[in-house]
């Protein structure tokens, strides 16, 4: 509920804010002050404790020194020697009887000395005073027993007395004994042994043992008045135990280690600790008895005070501070309420007006005020603002209408632009594809042209070889023709010769025929001759057989000749044909040579052309590649164009919508 009010009411918020602010400032400054003040107060308390501790220590030290000096003076006084003389006399009396007159004077002197000792005892806080002769450790005089009787000591005391006596005789200086409970109350007493110098010479006349009552120490350290009753002071021994002097409270929950540390470095130590269920500020300082006086023991002075007591003042201050703070916070709240009153009234009327303006109603009127402060300025400015807003809104409305009309046209134009840009992109894409194809074709053409160029160069070579071979072939054919002519001539001659042979053979055959006939006639004649013709008949028969053989031979030769003639005729014919063929071949060869020449020329020309084509196609390829690159660039640019046009269209559409919404928004205004 309070939160709701805070959210809705400026008055509440201001009141609470003022209160919270003041409270926070107070709390913050209070806390800081508290922290620093507490620290300072604690420091102050510690400082006070330190001062108290130093004071006590000085007091104790001077007390001990004073007493020691007093005892030394006492040891050098005549009274001691009187007592010693008395004692020596008494001893002599016990051994040897006689000289009564002198004894009385000794007794008188001793009695006077005793009286003086007793009278000084209360001033010197002496509990007892013992005097020992150098030859025996038992005391010859005790202040408590007086001169009437011989002093009696219990066993523990006589032992310590004996050891002190021996040490003094050995060391020839004042020696302190360990504190021991002496007398009633459990309060310890301190024994100091002083050497008694002889009147003449360096030797010792005896030992003076002063038993010091520690009640005086108690008085010293119990005397305070700096911080009231809250300071406790006490002495503790090396092990942290209460020595019986001062307040026992001071030794409660004391750490023996701390004591050892303090004794070790001889410096005072402070601590904040818990003792008896409450926090205490404690200061521990060494007395330095061992160092200063050569005592076989040492005491540590503990001074402590309750923290609560030390902080009591500052706590009271804090409570007063808090009360004042609450009052101030309440005042601040009230002030806030009053301040907000003067703001909230005009603000409410302004808020109503602004709400009207927010609804679009600019026809409201806020009267100017004559307040001179910021609120007055706000109201006047709001008045001016509404007026100028009215004017501006009027202008805006007109502008919005114009804008809406223009936007419609722009939108249409942008749409057309996008469409045409898309078409352009498509066309460029096709061109790009085509260009790529052209590039590939050009590449192919270039490769082909290179191949053709190579082929053409090979072809040139081949045609050169062909020309050479053709020339060789023509020359060969010409030689063949010569040989053929020669052969034909020979064959013709052979044919004629065979003709002649035929004639000869015919003649031979005729001759054979006639011989045959002749042989027949001879045979007839032989037959006619009868027995006488028998030999002739044989001759005729032989003739006839010769004729027959000749005839057969001629027949054979004729056959062979016929064959030869046939073959020769065939050869002649073949030669004729061969000659014709060779002539034809020669003609053809010459024609082929001419053709080869022309072919070679053509091939050379075509090789040149192929080279040129290759070069041209290479250049063409380079050009086409550049073209493709250019078209690619155009393509990309067109794509960007298209994208831009699309974005433009979209933007224009957005603008149109915006202008429409502007128009709608403007329509809400009532001017």
């Amino acid at each position: 509920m309070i939160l709701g009010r805070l959210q809705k009411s400026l008055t509440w918020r201001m009141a609470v804010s003022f209160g919270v602010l003041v409270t926070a400032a107070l709390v913050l400054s209070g806390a800081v002050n508290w922290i620093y003040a507490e620290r300072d107060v604690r420091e102050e308390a510690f400082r006070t404790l330190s001062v108290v501790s130093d004071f006590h220590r000085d007091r104790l030290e001077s007390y001990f020194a004073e007493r020691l000096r007093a005892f030394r003076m006492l040891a050098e006084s005549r009274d001691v020697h009187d007592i010693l003389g008395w004692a020596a006399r008494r001893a002599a009396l016990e051994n040897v009887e006689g000289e009564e007159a002198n004894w009385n004077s000794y007794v008188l002197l001793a009695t006077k000395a005793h009286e003086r000792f007793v009278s000084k005892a209360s001033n010197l806080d002496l509990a007892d005073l013992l005097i020992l002769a150098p030859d025996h450790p038992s005391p010859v005089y005790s202040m408590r027993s007086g001169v009437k009787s011989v002093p009696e000591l219990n066993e523990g005391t006589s032992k310590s007395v004996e050891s002190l006596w021996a040490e003094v005789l050995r060391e020839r200086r004042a020696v302190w004994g360990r504190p021991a409970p002496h007398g009633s109350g459990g309060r310890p007493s301190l024994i100091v042994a002083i050497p008694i110098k002889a009147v003449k010479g360096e030797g010792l006349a005896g030992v003076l043992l002063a038993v010091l009552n520690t009640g005086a120490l108690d008085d010293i350290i119990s005397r305070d008045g700096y911080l009231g009753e809250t300071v406790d002071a006490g002495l503790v021994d090396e092990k942290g135990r209460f020595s019986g002097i001062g307040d026992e409270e001071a030794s409660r929950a004391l750490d023996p280690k701390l004591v050892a540390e303090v004794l070790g470095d001889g410096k005072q130590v402070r601590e904040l600790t818990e003792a008896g269920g409450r926090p205490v500020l404690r200061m521990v300082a060494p007395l330095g008895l061992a160092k200063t006086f050569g005592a076989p023991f040492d005491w540590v002075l503990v001074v402590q005070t309750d923290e609560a007591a030390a902080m009591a003042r500052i706590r009271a201050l804090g409570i007063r501070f808090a009360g004042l703070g609450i009052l101030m916070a309440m005042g601040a709240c009230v002030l806030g309420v009053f301040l907000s009153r003067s703001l909230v009234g005009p603000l409410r009327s302004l808020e109503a007006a602004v709400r009207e303006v927010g609804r679009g109603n600019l026809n409201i009127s806020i009267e100017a005020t004559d307040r001179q402060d910021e609120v007055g300025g706000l109201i006047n400015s709001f008045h001016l603002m509404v007026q100028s807003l009215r004017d501006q809104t009027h202008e805006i409305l007109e502008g919005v209408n114009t804008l809406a009309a223009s936007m419609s046209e722009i939108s249409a134009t942008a749409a057309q632009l996008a469409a045409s840009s898309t078409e352009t992109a498509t066309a460029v894409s096709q061109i790009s594809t085509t260009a790529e194809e052209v590039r590939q074709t050009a590449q192919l053409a270039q490769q082909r042209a290179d191949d053709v160029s190579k082929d053409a160069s090979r072809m040139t070579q081949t045609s050169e070889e062909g020309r050479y071979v053709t020339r060789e072939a023509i020359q060969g054919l010409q030689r063949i023709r010569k040989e053929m002519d020669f052969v034909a001539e020979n064959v013709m001659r052979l044919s004629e010769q065979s003709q002649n042979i035929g004639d000869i053979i015919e003649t031979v055959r005729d001759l054979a025929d006639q011989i045959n006939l002749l042989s027949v006639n001879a045979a007839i004649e032989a037959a006619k001759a009868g027995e006488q013709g028998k030999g002739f008949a044989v001759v005729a028969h032989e003739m006839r057989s010769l004729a027959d053989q000749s005839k057969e031979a001629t027949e054979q030769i004729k056959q062979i000749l016929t064959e030869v003639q046939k073959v020769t005729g065939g050869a002649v014919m073949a030669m004729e044909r061969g000659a014709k063929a060779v002539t034809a071949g020669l003609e053809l060869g010459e024609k082929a040579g001419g053709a080869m020449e022309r072919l070679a020329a053509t091939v050379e020309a075509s090789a040149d052309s192929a080279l040129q084509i290759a070069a041209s196609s290479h250049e063409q390829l380079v050009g086409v590649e550049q073209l493709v690159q250019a078209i690619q660039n155009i393509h990309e640019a067109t794509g960007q164009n298209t994208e831009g046009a699309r974005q433009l269209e979209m933007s224009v559409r957005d603008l149109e919508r915006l202008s429409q919404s502007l128009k709608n928004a403007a329509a809400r205004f009532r001017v």
Partner: protein
Amino acid sequence: MENAKLAVLKERAKALAKGGNKVRDEEGEEFLVFSAGGERFGVKAGFVREVVRVEEPTPLPGIPPHVLGILNVRGEIVPVADLHRLLGIEGGRSESVDRVLILEIGNVVLGLAVDGVDGMRRLDAQHLQPAPSSVAASTPAAVLGLAANRVLILGGRELLNGLSSADSGSMQAGRNS
């Protein structure tokens, strides 16, 4: 029986071993064998004066058909006859006359145109076989018979007689050899 057969076989073997030449040498006479119109003829060497080679006999008008013409042999005029026609054998004579046999029987001289002359042969004229019918329908008188080796033996005188009978009154038959 066996012995008889063996005797005949032995006889034949002997005959074969003897050969024909010896028979010819010892028996028969010298014949001039020639061919005409595909047939072989033989005539006794005694009737033959010589064999001449002529181009063509000179034909004469008015002479019998079997006479081809006349021939001048070393100044002697000799008539030349066609053997086929002379013998009455069917079939034409040779186209051209090459050889002419000059037969001389007594004082009659006759040329006989033949196709070729084989030469002299010794033939057994005593054991002649009848001429085959292939020569003529009726064996002419001039053909004496068929000798060995299919040689038709011509009789000189018969031949001249045949000529004279065919040529009436020109020649008288001579003496038989």
